[in-house]
């Protein structure tokens, strides 16, 4: 497919995905949802599912599928929205988010028929598992890739660095890790809570490190991911992506209060209005 057309299509999908994030989070009522960390990575997840990864919603366990691990499991809304958009999860299940006995848990729970590859939610876990999955593929001589989304706050976890060093040791160049740098973690900015020089650390761990200045721009994200996906550098890849927490919803952007929170009817309507407006502007262009 012609690249510009693909970018336009993915943009279109990110708009629906944001709507689905809001719908799911609103459906959870007073249970609330992790809106901020999900909305920051919508373009990353959409670019992976609809522009980079080899997968088939009709065959979720296809052996040569690329694997996706949402290590920042609290951002599951973005993950579920992609799975809904791709057709793994029926859209009718949106109201079930966080509901009793629902498969749409507050953190992903492995469920292969619905495309949920790995259970995550305990930070750092998904990334370490992704490293093992990449090693297994290498051991078995399989050519698929493993894509893993990690949060910047998540990089506080020691296991991230245990696993990063191990992945470098085994030269897991079939592993592509996208670090969503939205600048916030639960109780404050990442700068305040735990200032980490992520660039220096990923380089020190001997990973192949790339950068995206605006991770909410599909064009930048898609082009860089495609480039990395087709490269062979003999090292695992870390893509450090600057994003905006709560991207796309006026009152959520860079607002720590919506890291995890319920929204009321008024806020829901405001969010939908924001998304309608963004869509209208895009169509006018």
């Amino acid at each position, binding site marked *: 497919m012609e690249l510009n057309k693909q970018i336009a299509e993915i943009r279109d999908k990110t708009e629906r995905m944001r709507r689905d994030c809001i719908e799911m989070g609103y459906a959870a009522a007073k249970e609330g949802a992790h809106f901020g960390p999900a909305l920051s990575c919508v373009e990353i997840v959409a670019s992976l599912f609809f522009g980079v990864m080899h997968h088939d919603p009709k065959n979720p366990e296809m052996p040569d599928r690329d694997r996706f691990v949402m290590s920042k499991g609290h951002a599951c809304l973005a993950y579920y929205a992609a799975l809904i958009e791709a057709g793994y999860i029926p859209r009718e299940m949106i109201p079930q988010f966080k509901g009793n006995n629902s498969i749409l848990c507050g953190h992903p*729970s*492995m469920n292969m028929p619905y495309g949920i*590859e*790995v*259970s995550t*939610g*305990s930070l*750092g*876990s998904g*990334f*370490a*598992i*992704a*490293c*093992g*999955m*990449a*090693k*297994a*593929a290498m*051991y*078995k001589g399989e050519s698929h890739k493993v894509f893993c989304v990690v949060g910047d706050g998540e990089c506080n976890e*020691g*296991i991230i660095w*245990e*696993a990063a*060093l*191990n992945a470098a*040791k*085994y030269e897991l160049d079939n592993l592509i890790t996208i670090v969503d740098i939205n600048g916030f973690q639960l109780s404050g900015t990442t700068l305040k809570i735990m200032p980490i020089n992520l660039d220096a650390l990923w380089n020190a761990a001997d990973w192949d490190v790339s950068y995206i200045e605006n991770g909410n721009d599909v064009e930048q994200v898609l082009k860089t991911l495609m480039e990395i996906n087709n490269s062979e550098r003999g090292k695992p890849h870390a893509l450090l992506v600057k994003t905006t927490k709560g991207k796309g919803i006026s009152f959520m952007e860079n607002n720590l209060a919506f890291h995890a929170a319920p929204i009321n009817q008024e806020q829901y309507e405001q969010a939908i209005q924001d998304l309608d407006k963004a869509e209208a502007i895009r169509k006018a262009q």
Partner: protein
Amino acid sequence: MSSISVELLKEWSKLGHRSALGESLILLAKERNDVVVVSPDLTTTARLVNFENEFSDRLFNVGIAEQNMIGFTAGLAKEGLMPFAVSIAAFAPMRCAEQIQNMLGYMNLNARVVGIEAGCRFGPLGNTHFAMDDMALMRAIPNFTVICPSDPHQIYKTVFAVADHEGPVHIRLTGAPGFPLIYPEDFDFEIGKAIEYRPGIDIAIIATGSVLWEGIHAAEILEKNGISARVIDMHTVKPIDVKMLDSVFAQNKLIVTVEEHTIIGGLGSAVAEYKAGFNNAPNQIMCGLGDRFRKIGNYDFHMKDNGLVAEDIAEKARNAFTEL
């Protein structure tokens, strides 16, 4: 799985459970390409050097990093390999218990976590190196099977049995080099099915791990005192063999559980939990490690200090039986 010579078993008995494990893994890996081993830099300690020499591409030393050992293991298992994560029992499960629960238990993966030197074997090294509570931790994690083999032969059987088992398994290994060969002949081993080592009417000694040997000798002492003691090898602590326990409740008058583990949450607890549902089940006494941190000392010192020697087990059992 082929049968194994008594000479080799005697050699493993002499060398200890680490060698029994390492050599059994080699034999298993020769039969199955999916078997891989993950180690947090314990290749030499865990006697995995021979394995590494034979299968250099199947031994993954992840460095001194137990949490990642489990994450890496989970990823390997998720992709269909049969990983054995081998660490010192003091560090796995305790140091990576959360990872074991959320990665292996929650996703019900076919991974095996092996703790070497469980209990007090590292006695002179201090409490940081004792694994007193590993069964308590692992029993509490859904989907996990918990096995504590009693001798080198049972270690071999366990290694092969778990490779065909669905779901995550914890194997804890106890006993010092020179730990007795209890089963020199071939024997039937099935996960979850206890072995009646010897019949008896009055007391049922239910033991797990290498301390079974002390239970067997306790039964012999009791016999000389005119008390008939049955000995049961409860190698699988979870799921516990309730059929065997039903038989004990029906046939025996006193239960003595024996384990090299804190009396909180291990074999004794598992028996008591099941027994709680019965009105007329026999009394139970628990022989195990007391609920305390301990002084340092060699293995024999700790076993005596905790009453985990045949004479003490027999005396405790005799006293309790006399008071019935």
